[in-house]
């Protein structure tokens, strides 16, 4: 049971794509999967000590208030809360991509340490992900 592994390359910075990152992470961690999350691209702006405001895709913008109300109604935690819950329950590691961090002028101390475990290169991530499932989100 403990030998299963799921890894995610999280590129998107829009909240509609980050919600499933939280859901999958929490469930996988509870079930005993090892979870590795490699944050890159615009998603880096969401794991900072001062994270970016919620961003939604333009084509669904009109539906966002209804979705937010629905999320509140079903008491869904934020995707970050779900990742943190996953960390409490199991083996969840979150890494920031060093290349994109450099390109954006972000240093390790800019990232929220309650989410991001380390800033690493892609080689480290590929080695950790080897042999398991990988999702690109």
């Amino acid at each position, binding site marked *: *049971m403990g030998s299963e592994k799921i890894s995610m390359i999280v590129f998107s910075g829009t909240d509609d794509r980050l919600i499933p990152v939280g*859901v999958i992470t*929490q*469930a996988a961690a*509870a*079930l005993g999967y090892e979870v590795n999350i490699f944050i890159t691209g615009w998603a880096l702006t969401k794991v900072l000590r001062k994270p970016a405001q919620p961003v939604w895709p333009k084509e669904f913008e009109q539906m966002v208030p209804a979705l937010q109300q629905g999320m509140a109604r*079903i*008491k*869904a935690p934020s995707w970050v809360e*779900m990742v943190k*819950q996953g960390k409490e*329950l199991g083996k969840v590691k979150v890494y920031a991509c060093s290349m994109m961090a450099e390109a954006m002028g972000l240093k390790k101390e800019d990232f929220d340490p309650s989410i991001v475990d380390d800033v690493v290169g892609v080689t480290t991530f590929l080695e950790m992900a080897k042999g398991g499932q990988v999702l690109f989100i």
Partner: protein
Amino acid sequence: MSQGNRITVDARGIACPGPITELIKAYRNAKNGDVIEVWATDPGFEPDVKAWISRTGNQLVELRKEQDKIIAVIKVTAKR
């Protein structure tokens, strides 16, 4: 086998993956012979609890739908 404890997990009103998470939290503290009863309202809980049972090999004693909730009764048998 000695009589186990009965544990009730009220996961009504919380969304996936909350109910399974709460079940697993209770399961971690349980021992073989215990019975865990979960109440949930998330419609995904019914297939999810079946998937969890087939994954873990515990015993699903009862799975029923009431008007306002899904009830799963699980006998803990697969703890090592």
